[in-house]
């Protein structure tokens, strides 16, 4: 974590127009532009391996938040929301840990620097989020507000940790050159107990300062701090504090600490002397640390609404006109000023992906803090940010599934966005297609279901997987496609003279009814089976039914009639007279339908077939009339 944390240390990150994709640099005038192909990619961050945990875990928290109905009101709801906020932060921290590990173990310097940058960015995000949690979600009131801010500072200013550790672990801490720095750090951060502990070491090591140490220790011990519970009112606390402040003042003016400049400066800090505090700039490293220290020692009962004044002046004093505020500073300032929209806007600009603003805004929306003023393109801010974030997820090969849930919770445009995105997910395995289909079916997106099934069925058909293609058409209840597949089977049959994929056709079951052609296919195959099993009369009946019930397409009638030939030629009579008349009618229907020109074009084979059929039918008729006319013997 660097001092004066920058949000985007790497200039490359800043230059990447993260929302609109990278722009091509304009060609230098007068010279032809280089002939390159640029790969433009939106939302680079989602491809960083170590951030995946962030996206996945936060998705779980997001869903949990949306699902938690407003069963609780008032205080318990607030507790619930604070818990959600803490969960988000712990996910950020976990991710930071992983990223840090990755940075440490990275051997490639470029990768190491990328990871380190990410650690900084995550750290800054957690810093901002934490402040927002204190000010907005928890909405700490005067009193607890200061305590929370102190915690916040202690958590995030870690530059000094090494120094502290070094001094504490040395043999003779009070002799260490950085001893007083560490005491100052503790005082600045309001860590009185730890400061007193170190002072006692000084007292035992240095007898001359025992008296001063005792007094200072006493002052530190007695310093009134706001309490979290309801043990004292603000007025009580203010009164105590005033007394204590005056006591410190007296000791200072009496020159009690005159002989030890360190302790004197500490006393001044306790009195809230701005200059004294400012002298310790290097130990505080940031203006917001300065702000909180100031508040601790000059105005511990600060009210939330008063923060803005102190914040502005603190920043001015600290930066002192040497440097201008950086993006992080602007964001924090906006937070202290309670300008929520400004915070969100600045974060959106500074960060390279929508994750942070989307989730934070959603949480703030649940806290009922965002007015529902519409942005000019119609949806409210929460929804806009969630839509942008989720859209970014959809370009990722696996995180798109998270995006679906985000769209679900965008009431206005979520569904439309989902419909458009889900159709564009590449479906390279059947399993993926099934997952996408399940999502569509659960949301009654019938158009998309049909479209996806058609794509999969077409792919299967092209790969000659007729069974798969049929399975997809059944899922979509797509009669037209089922007809297409059946035609393919029939075509194969006509060409090869036998059926392929019998395991499929023999086993159609109720799905046979999906399309007429499919029914025909199933029944036609049944006819063949009956014939193979020598159940001729049943086969004959079925064959006839296929034509008379118009299940068979007209184009196939010739084939069917030709199939009838062997039945007509059998030794025993199979077709009854009635049936034979029917067959003849079918044949006549078929030939009558042809125009004279077609008849002329018919080749010999065709005409011969028709002739043979007529002959066979006539012969059969003759035999059957005789048979039926004869009295049956017993």
């Amino acid at each position, binding site marked *: 974590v660097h001092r004066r944390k920058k949000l985007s240390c790497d200039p490359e990150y800043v230059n990447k127009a993260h929302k609109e994709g990278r722009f091509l640099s304009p060609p230098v005038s007068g010279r032809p532009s280089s002939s390159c192909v640029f790969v433009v990619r939106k939302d680079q961050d989602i*491809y960083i*391996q170590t951030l*995946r*945990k962030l996206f*996945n875990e936060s*998705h*779980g928290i997001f*869903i*949990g938040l949306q699902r938690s109905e407003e069963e609780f009101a008032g205080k318990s709801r607030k507790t619930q929301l604070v818990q959600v906020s803490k969960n988000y932060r712990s996910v950020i921290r976990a991710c930071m840990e992983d990223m840090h590990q990755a940075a440490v173990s990275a051997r490639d310097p470029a990768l190491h620097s990328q990871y380190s940058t990410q650690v900084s960015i995550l750290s800054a995000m957690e810093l901002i989020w934490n402040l927002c949690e204190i000010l907005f979600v928890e909405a700490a009131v005067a009193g607890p507000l200061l305590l929370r801010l102190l915690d916040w500072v202690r958590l995030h200013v870690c530059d000094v940790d090494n120094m502290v550790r070094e001094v504490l672990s040395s043999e003779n801490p009070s002799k260490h050159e950085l001893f007083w720095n560490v005491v100052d750090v503790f005082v600045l951060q309001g860590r009185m107990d730890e400061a007193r502990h170190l002072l006692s070491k000084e007292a035992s090591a240095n007898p001359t300062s025992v008296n001063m140490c005792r007094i200072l220790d006493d002052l530190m011990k007695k310093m009134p701090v706001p309490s979290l519970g309801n043990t004292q009112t603000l007025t009580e606390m203010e009164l105590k504090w005033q007394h204590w402040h005056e006591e410190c003042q007296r000791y200072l003016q009496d020159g009690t600490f005159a002989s030890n400049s360190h302790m004197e400066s500490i006393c001044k800090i306790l009195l809230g002397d701005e200059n004294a505090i400012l002298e310790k700039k290097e130990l505080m490293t940031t203006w917001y640390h300065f702000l909180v220290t100031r508040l601790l020692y000059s105005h511990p009962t600060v009210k939330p609404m008063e923060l803005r004044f102190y914040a502005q002046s603190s920043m001015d004093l600290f930066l002192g006109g040497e440097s201008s505020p950086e993006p992080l500073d602007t964001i924090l300032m906006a937070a202290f000023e309670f300008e929520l929209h400004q915070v969100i806007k600045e974060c959106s600009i500074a960060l390279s992906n929508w994750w942070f603003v989307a989730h934070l805004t959603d949480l703030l929306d649940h806290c009922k803090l965002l007015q529902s003023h519409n942005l000019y393109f119609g949806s409210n801010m929460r929804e806009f940010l969630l839509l942008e974030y989720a859209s970014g997820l959809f370009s990722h*090969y*696996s995180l*798109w*599934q*998270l995006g679906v*849930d985000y769209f679900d919770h965008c009431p206005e445009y979520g569904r439309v966005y989902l419909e458009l995105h889900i159709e564009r997910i*590449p479906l*390279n*395995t*059947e*399993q*993926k297609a*099934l*997952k996408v289909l*399940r999502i569509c079916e659960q949301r009654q997106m019938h158009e998309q279901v049909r479209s996806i099934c058609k794509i999969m069925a077409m792919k299967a058909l092209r*790969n*000659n*997987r*007729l*069974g*798969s293609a*049929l*399975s997809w058409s*059944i899922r979509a209840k797509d009669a037209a496609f089922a007809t297409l597949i059946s035609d393919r089977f029939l075509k194969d049959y006509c060409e090869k003279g036998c059926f*392929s*994929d019998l*395991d*499929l056709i023999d*086993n*159609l*079951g*109720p*799905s046979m009814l999906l399309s007429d052609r499919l029914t025909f296919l199933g029944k036609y195959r049944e006819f063949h089976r009956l014939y193979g099993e020598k159940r001729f009369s049943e086969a004959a009946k079925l064959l006839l039914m296929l034509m008379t019930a118009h299940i068979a397409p007209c184009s196939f009638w010739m084939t069917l009639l030709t199939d009838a030939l062997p039945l007509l030629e059998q030794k025993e009579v199979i077709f009854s007279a009635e049936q034979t008349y029917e067959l003849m009618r079918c044949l006549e229907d078929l030939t009558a339908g042809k125009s004279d020109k077609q008849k002329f074009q018919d080749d010999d084979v065709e005409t011969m077939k028709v002739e043979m059929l007529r002959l066979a039918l006539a012969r059969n008729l003759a035999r059957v009339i005789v048979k039926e006319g004869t009295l049956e013997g017993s």
Partner: protein
Amino acid sequence: DGTSCVSVCARCLAKSDGVISIQDNRISIWSVGDLGNVGLNGEYQGEPQLLCDIRHNGDVMDMQFLDQERIVVASSTGNVTIFRHHQNNQTLSANQRWEKAHYHVDRDASCGGAACTGVICSNPEIVTVGEDGRINLFRADQKDAVRTIDNADSSTLHAVTFLRTTEILTVNSIGQLKIWDLRQQRNEPSQIFSLTGDRVPLHCVDRHPNQQHIVATGGQDGMLSIWDIRQGTMPVSLLNAHEAEMWEVHFHPSNPDHLFTCSEDGSLWHWDTSTSVSEKPSFLHQGGRSTTYFSHNTINQSVVSAWLSNDPTKDRMEITNLIPNQTLSVNSLDILGPCLVYGTDAEAIYVNRHLFA
């Protein structure tokens, strides 16, 4: 997507981020400490530790441990790869690969591969099935396939498992369960079973560890079917289970009265028939005890398995959903002893070390 497969070996489990083509898919080996035993000093086991991982080309569709060190992985590109886990230096390396073991019409075309959807091993034999309807029989360390049945099925084969040492079971996307005898040379299944009613695709299959005639399958509609392959061509019982595709079904290898299923709807169910006491005649009880439970070994041999009973509700089968807050799909699960492992689309793996506590 997310975590697509988990496979448990005695000491470690393999997990893979199943994803698509160009991106970063990995096979990872994790250590979960001693299974079933608390550490020597009673120490807390802690989280699974990542031991090693390796890039994988294509989605991982299925995988299984071949032996203590080798894992067979089925890829969406149609490749089947054996990875070896070197325990001395904790690395993974690709040991052997069968390129485009599964392919559509033109094997040499760049996109000609077809996803290999299922793999089952019985050292040294490996059987794979794929979206091309093909069945391959490989032998570890043998370069060419021992046997290939082209166009074994006109639809996609979703899963395969061993029935006996020379027979396999496959399920496909038109709701058929087929038995194949690998000793026979003909390329036809020796038996075909199918669902009644709609031909809902079947996605997973598993065989009872002790009673080999009992087979469980899971379908696209989340239905669990139990089959007795000695009789009939239809399932013995159909149990309405999940609300979406059932991805995997597993009998517990040593406690087969327990069955586990996981689904796209994000739930993982534990089916427990061990407490079922139907009106069995008393002479089947052990000795003079009028107990309400029996030791598992004796009951499996002497009594008709609870799985085949016609009325599971009468026999008090306990069904529990092991996932409290379900969100995304549970893609895969595996069990060994008291340890259950499952992986979800939220890119997470969960280890439950006290299944029967």
